[in-house]
């Protein structure tokens, strides 16, 4: 295993990681707010909306992300009539799949966070004269986020790992290039390099979240 060989397989994999990271960022940035909206929908007093949101969450969490990606990427264009308008760019389709899927997971996390907030917090806010919006934005949401942070961190690490599914919709990412190199050179090395890259990414992410957690600790 020469150094040159190592570099030669590393470079395409790092290229591929760019895709991984880009997808990760897009998915996180969009699915967290969408997840929060879903949580609100679930808690909404408008029953139909609440039911729809719950069914949505249930279906997204009950079927494999891989299947969802295949549907968005290859299934939608096959719908008779409207299919031709549903042909998304491959990467856009992948992002959409991840956002729709992870929003459901984040919604569950936020719901848990809301449940963990003591009734007394709402009562104290009410007695102090805060209106519902102020109570939500100043009292409830900050605490909810703080409570949800460890779960958010876990879910984000899962998201990084799930980017490996990109290869199913033919977005050339890290794992795809590792597999190319393994097949071409008949050596297990590239898999280990890929594993190391994933470990670095998840480690950095974990450290980042730990830092945020410490920063926003209530103590």
């Amino acid at each position, binding site marked *: 295993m020469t150094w040159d060989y190592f570099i030669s397989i590393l470079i395409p994999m790092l290229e591929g990681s760019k895709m991984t990271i880009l997808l990760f960022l897009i998915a996180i940035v969009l699915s967290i707010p969408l997840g929060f909206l879903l949580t609100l929908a679930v808690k909404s007093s408008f029953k139909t909306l609440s039911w729809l949101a719950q069914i949505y969450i249930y279906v997204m969490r009950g079927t494999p992300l891989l299947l969802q990606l295949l549907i968005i990427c*290859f299934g939608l*264009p*096959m719908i008779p009539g409207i299919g031709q308008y549903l042909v998304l760019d491959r990467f856009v389709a992948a992002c959409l799949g991840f956002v729709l899927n992870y929003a459901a997971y984040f919604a569950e996390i936020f719901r848990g966070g809301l449940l963990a907030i003591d009734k007394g917090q709402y009562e104290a806010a009410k007695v102090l004269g805060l209106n519902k919006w102020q109570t939500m934005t100043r009292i409830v949401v900050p605490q909810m986020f703080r409570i949800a942070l460890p779960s958010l961190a876990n879910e984000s690490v899962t998201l990084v790992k799930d980017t490996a599914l990109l290869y*199913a919709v033919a977005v050339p990412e890290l794992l795809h290039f590792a597999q*190319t190199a393994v*097949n071409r050179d008949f050596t297990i090395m590239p898999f280990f390099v890929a594993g190391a890259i994933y470990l670095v990414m998840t480690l950095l992410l974990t450290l980042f979240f730990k830092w945020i957690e410490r920063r926003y600790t209530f103590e």
Partner: protein
Amino acid sequence: SDSSSKTGEKAEEKETLVIGIDDKFAPMGFRDENNEIVGFDIDLAKAAAEKMAVEIEFQPIDWKTKEAELNSGRIDLIWNGYTVTDERKEKVLFTKPYLANAQVVVTLADSELSKLDDLAGKVVGLQSLSSASDALAGNPISEDIKTVTEFSDNVTALSDLKSGRLDAVVIDEIVINYYMTTQKDTFKILEEELAPEEYAVGIKKGNEELQNKVQTALDEMNTDGTAEEISIKWLGEDKVLK
């Protein structure tokens, strides 16, 4: 006015054709040690693009999804050792075939298997949704095979053959010939072949205009020797169908 300005734009910039390939399908299209996509079909497509005065872009896809990719319009052509079959003709437009191929059975060089009948009770691998599975299914021996394992690409199947999980792989003759030149004495091809077949370029149903354009380019390359040159480069001899 809006639509007219759009067509105006289109006329100016070159059209881009997206070509779907399996980037693990040597020597037709695969990645070299620099991770560049190279191969017979890659060179052929590049030369054709020049004739057609279009830009091209190679899109590696999961071979299982190739027709879905074409149908969705995300790729314009399937051009990567794509075998003409009757079933596919119902879903895809083909150019005239440009290369002859056959589905063959490959085993390890030291294997005891020597004829098709020996496959009875054996484990055979092939690429999922490829013409190899059609070829195998069309042969009576398929009844007696123990298991058929489907891989997303040929290379993984060959790896599994090498590691001993498979007894044989059904694969394109062109592909295995290439591997036998790079990895000498590893494999052996059974003499009886499963089925002859031909490669052509696949185009989305209904797009006869593109079909004609590609066909014209292929014909031109046949006459001016470009195709012959590419064939010699990758296959060692001129095998192109005139």
